């Protein structure tokens, strides 16, 4: 039953993987510089690593906004956010999982009578605006640097393209890592306060309760990438490539940096150490940051026809998404509590979750252990299978080429 409650979060993770992976590898796959297979494998691994090892920061901020203290509540919020994302996508409205989950949490606060922390909320909302702006700044800076280096080095086009291809893979991996680190909070953040799992000892390291949830969420994102992101990468990704290959890598790198900055507690601590204000650990929308980056480069290159309609739609999305998700969460919580009789959470008194209903099933950790083993074995087998097929293809190609030249002689 406990696992059933996780399904809404896993579904949210799947849809995040299916849609947002294109922001990271879309330009590489859309321009055929990197094959989808390679991109999917790299993105899946990086997203899981980012989620497990750096997902805590942004998730904590969401926890401060609303510490959902019953598993039924977490399930309902994730479902409300997922439905909002699905409906808005269906009507081609720009939507961000981040904004949907924030709206849902506020809906939960209203329903359970908890106060929404205004400080945390303003911190989150400010990053929605500052994320794309920062992305634009990074993009322009990186673009200037890369163009100057290219001109000064007089590098051969093919060699430059080879650097670019390798760069796209590395930057894509970094982007997927940052996406996992930053956006796992949207997928599993609401489940963290409601779950209290046993530590999972994996020999080399141990996974805490939240890390186990992030691992599951990361796996869901990976499944979304592998099963459904190909089409999105080939179509949406193509739009980004229209800039040019240098701009494509810059956009992905700038976006990854923004996501990384808003999820790296190490960097935030460093800021504090040198006397600067700490960086808020907040989940930001990768799609909106990418729009900021593209507009930044467009402005730098002197484009006059900035798509104000798109900017307006994003602005509307900042309000419409949380409102819709919040309302949906509020009414869903009402139904779940009163019709199905499932506990959806209590009012937090004096900072402590009074009467919190946390799940402590030790079976889940065992399931995660076996799941991890199964994923590793499957990954290994698939890797061996594809490398054999690749080798066979290369051999056949060489044979046919040799035959061609032999007969031509």
């Amino acid at each position, binding site marked *: 039953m406990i696992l059933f409650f996780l399904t809404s979060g896993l579904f949210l993770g799947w849809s995040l993987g299916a849609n947002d992976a294109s922001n990271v590898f879309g330009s590489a796959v859309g*321009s055929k510089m990197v094959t989808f297979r390679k991109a999917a494998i790299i993105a899946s691994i990086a997203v899981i690593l980012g989620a497990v090892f750096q997902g805590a920061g942004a998730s904590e901020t969401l926890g401060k906004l609303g510490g959902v203290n019953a598993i039924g509540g977490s399930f309902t919020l994730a479902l409300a956010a997922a439905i909002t994302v699905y409906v808005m996508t269906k009507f081609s409205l720009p939507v961000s999982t981040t904004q949907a989950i924030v709206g849902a949490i506020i809906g939960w606060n209203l329903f359970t009578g908890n106060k929404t922390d205004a400080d945390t909320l303003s911190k989150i909302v400010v990053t929605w605006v500052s994320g794309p702006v920062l992305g634009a700044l990074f993009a322009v800076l990186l673009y200037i640097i890369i163009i100057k280096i290219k001109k000064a080095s*007089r590098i*051969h086009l*093919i*060699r430059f393209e080879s650097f670019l291809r390798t760069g796209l*893979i590395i930057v894509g991996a970094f982007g997927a890592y940052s996406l996992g680190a930053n956006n796992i909070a949207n997928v599993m953040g609401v489940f963290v306060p409601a779950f209290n799992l046993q530590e999972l000892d994996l020999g080399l390291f141990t996974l805490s309760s939240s890390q186990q949830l992030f691992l599951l969420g990361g796996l869901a994102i990976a499944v979304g990438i592998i099963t459904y992101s190909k089409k999105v990468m080939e179509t949406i990704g193509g739009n980004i490539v229209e800039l040019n290959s240098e701009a494509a890598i810059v956009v992905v790198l700038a976006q990854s940096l923004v996501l990384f900055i808003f999820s790296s507690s190490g960097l935030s601590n460093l800021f504090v150490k040198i006397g600067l204000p700490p960086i808020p650990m907040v989940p930001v929308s990768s799609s909106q940051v990418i729009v900021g980056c593209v507009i930044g480069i467009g402005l730098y290159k002197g484009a006059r026809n900035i798509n104000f309609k798109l900017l307006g739609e994003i602005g509307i999305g900042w309000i419409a998404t949380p409102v819709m998700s919040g309302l949906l969460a509020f009414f869903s919580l009402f139904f779940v509590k009163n019709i199905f009789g499932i506990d959806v959470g209590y009012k937090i008194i004096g900072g402590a979750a009074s009467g919190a209903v946390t799940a402590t099933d030790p079976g889940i950790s065992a399931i995660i252990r076996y799941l991890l083993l199964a994923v590793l074995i499957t990954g290994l087998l698939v890797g061996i299978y594809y490398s054999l097929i690749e080798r066979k293809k290369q051999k056949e190609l060489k044979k046919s080429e040799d035959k061609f030249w032999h007969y031509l002689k």
Partner: protein
Amino acid sequence: MALFKRTTKDLIIRIDEFLDNIELGLLVFRESINSYIDKDMEAFSRHLQKVDTLEGNADRLQRMIENEMITHSILPQHREEVARLLDVLDEIIDTVKSSLNEFIIEMPEIPAALNKDIINLTEASVEAAEELIPAARAYFTTPYTVREKLLKVYYFESETDKIALNTKKRIFQEMKDIDLAHKAHLRYIIHHIENISDMAQKAADMLSAMAIKIVI
């Protein structure tokens, strides 16, 4: 990863080698016409054989480059254009070879009075094509200099046209002692030589558009 494979280096070398072959082919064409005018048929045959080898090499390299670009998905955004450019450049060396073959088959009788005109015509036509090669190389390394390099191609092409026109005028209006069939044959030979610069201009037009696309 592409960066750590030899493919990139090999491909760059092959493209350079391909362009070397075209350049060398043009050089040999110039020498061949000089040998023909000097009536040194032994040297002419030797040159023809050399051009034949160079044309074969260029074909082989062109196929290898295209194959590698497709198999390793190199330059996905510019691959088709680069392949078309190589094709047009290959047509130049094909034209060189076929022109020389016309000479060896038809053995046109060039009046001594036209020797200088034919040499000048060859010189200008070959020069136009030769100027194309540095521009083609620049496309890969300094694309923003391609257009200025191509100016010379257009200059020599128009020079070729002028020389060809004057030579044809001389043949048909001033040389009363040769018959019409001979005149027509000479015009045909001039057209063959002139063809090389026309090919170069066609490639220059394409290269110019490619360079703009890559710079923007």
